[in-house]
């Protein structure tokens, strides 16, 4: 087996491996506890290596195409037909960028789970569902087919719902899961309806082929509204955000970290639809303006709702809404400025900011949720009023929390600063007020995390607890390592990873050409 073969088939392998492993998990679970843990971690590590291996090639400048079921995976259009018929996986820089986020967060959460769920029942099912979430996310991010996107969206929904309700012995876990399930089912029906509208007009399901055929008729506009509404619901942007705090706060902390990455997969689908599917046929400044308004509302409402919270995970969930606002603002400003030729360099800068913020947010918000899980693991409470003095005994957790909190507030040596600065700069070109609001939200974010740090870690020693087990610390250390790495070398990351991703998203012609071939 040489590396060329592996590279060519890796888009399919990346999706197939965790899918196969997920359904092998109940069998391995029968052997022994240790076999199950080793199996889960090995699968997650192999997955991460495969994704990084493919990413290295994709960032080198060649997007990968994989046609499912064809004799040669590169022939997207069969000889007898004029359009792509089979399911096509299209891996460009943006898709693999999101896949890196998903694989890394799942790896960290998987290591963390080893000790974290040790006392719960049904651990085999837990890992099965965890791998299925990974399948759903990676499928959404790598696919180039509308209906396939819908199928993976539903795989993601079912696995997430089951894991949000994992602690079903506590009353509110199931309630949070209901909210998530109802919102997700309706969003998925909207997506399916939009797919029906597009298929009725063009007889196509492939995104690239659709993008080259699309006429921007009235039905297309309705489909666009349905798709944007559905994915905005799923990513937790403000008018449809109310499921986020409930679902995030009741899920086990390791799953909450993955849910952050899962809602970003929906965010990715939103961007993919706006840029690659509709792209040049859109009135760019209108849809950009809509995304800016969504973003501002999410930022401001999220952070002001977070300030008075007493439940540590609910507070962090509201911050997740507010940080999603930054991504929408960055990419919205990008769309808005790309429509004006004299500002197009700032447009790309803004998109880089928004996209860089996606990976930063997944890392530091994942880390913060994991630390809140560590506190819950020792104290069995999420209420901030009952905590205190944990800095005396849980030193590593406290350090990880400080790093995460400083990163989310955008304090210089950490990664949040780099992406927020890019967004401030570019948003200033649209209107200084946008930058002012964005900075104000950052300050409020810092304020509420100072509050959490003070009430959880400072003060006299109240509880006689030990540090959390090593595997939980290792899970947090993985994410901390990425945060510090990105914080120390933001220029390298933006130039080599984020810029190709932003370019791939903005360049609709290249996306179409990769599948249809001119």
């Amino acid at each position, binding site marked *: 087996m040489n590396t060329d073969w592996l590279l060519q088939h890796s888009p399919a392998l990346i999706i197939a491996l965790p899918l196969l492993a997920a359904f092998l998990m109940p069998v391995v679970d029968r052997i022994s506890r240790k076999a199950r843990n080793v199996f889960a971690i090995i699968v997650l590590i192999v997955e991460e290596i495969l994704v990084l291996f493919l990413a290295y090639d994709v960032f080198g400048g060649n997007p990968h195409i994989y046609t499912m079921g064809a004799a040669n995976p590169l022939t997207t259009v069969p000889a007898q037909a004029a359009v792509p018929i089979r399911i096509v996986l299209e891996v460009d820089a943006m898709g693999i960028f999101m896949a890196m986020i998903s694989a890394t967060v799942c790896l960290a959460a998987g290591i963390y789970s080893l000790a974290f769920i040790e006392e719960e029942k049904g651990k085999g099912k837990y890992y099965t569902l965890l791998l299925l979430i990974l399948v759903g996310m990676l499928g959404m991010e790598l696919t180039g087919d509308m*209906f396939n996107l*819908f*199928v993976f969206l*539903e795989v993601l*929904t*079912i696995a997430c*719902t*089951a894991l949000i*309700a994992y602690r*079903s012995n506590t*009353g*509110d876990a*199931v*309630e949070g*899961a*209901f*909210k998530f*399930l*109802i919102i997700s*089912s*309706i969003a*998925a*029906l909207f997506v*399916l*309806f939009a*797919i*029906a509208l597009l*298929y*009725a007009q063009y*007889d196509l*399901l492939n995104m690239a082929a659709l993008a080259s055929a699309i006429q921007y008729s009235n039905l297309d506009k309705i489909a666009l509204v349905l798709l944007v509404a559905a994915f905005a619901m799923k990513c937790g942007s403000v008018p449809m955000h109310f499921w986020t705090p*409930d679902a995030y706060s009741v899920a086990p902390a390791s799953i909450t970290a993955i849910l952050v990455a899962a809602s970003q997969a929906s965010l990715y689908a939103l961007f993919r639809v706006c840029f690659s599917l509709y792209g040049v046929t859109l009135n760019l400044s209108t849809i950009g303006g809509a995304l800016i308004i969504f973003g501002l509302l999410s930022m401001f409402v999220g952070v002001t*709702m977070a300030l008075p919270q007493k439940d540590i995970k609910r507070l962090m969930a509201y911050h997740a809404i507010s940080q999603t606002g930054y991504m929408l603002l960055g990419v919205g400003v990008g769309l808005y400025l790309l429509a004006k030729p004299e500002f197009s360099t700032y447009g790309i800068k803004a998109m880089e900011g928004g996209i860089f913020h996606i990976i930063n947010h997944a890392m530091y918000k994942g880390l913060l949720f994991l630390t809140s899980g560590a506190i819950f693991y020792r104290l069995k409470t999420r209420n901030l009023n009952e905590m205190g003095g944990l800095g005396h005994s849980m030193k590593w957790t406290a350090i990880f929390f400080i790093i995460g909190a400083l990163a989310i507030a955008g304090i210089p040596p950490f990664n949040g600063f780099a992406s927020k600065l890019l967004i401030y700069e570019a948003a200033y070109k649209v209107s200084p007020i946008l930058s002012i609001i964005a900075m104000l939200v950052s300050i409020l974010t810092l304020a509420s995390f100072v509050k959490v740090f003070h009430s959880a870690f400072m003060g006299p020693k109240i509880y006689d607890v030990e540090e959390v087990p090593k595997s939980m610390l290792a899970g947090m250390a993985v994410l901390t390592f990425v945060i510090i790495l990105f914080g120390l070398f933001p220029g390298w990351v933006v130039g080599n990873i984020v810029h190709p991703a932003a370019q791939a998203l903005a360049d609709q012609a290249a996306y179409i050409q990769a599948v249809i071939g001119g």
Partner: protein
Amino acid sequence: MIWAIYFAIASLLAIGIYGVITKKNLMKIFISISIMETGVNLMLIAIGYIPGGTAPIENGDFTTYVDPLPQALVLTAIVIGVSVLALALVMVINYYEKNKTLEYRRLMKW
């Protein structure tokens, strides 16, 4: 004739959305979601329909046939819908055992 089908689709979607928004009983919410799902599936079937068309089975004695792809899509969508519904019903049972009610009360909690 074809307008009757689109009218049916619109009615099913409207009834479903109305039910999800207004009802507080969990069973009724999931029944409403199922109704919406039927509407969307009917939509997919309707767009592939050709008047007078037969099943696309290759035996040589047909001239017009309906588009088979939407039917394949609908089969997939039905399977997905069933599994979501099954998961939802399991959770409804769990919820009922805990709270002895099917009313969903925490919808507006801050």
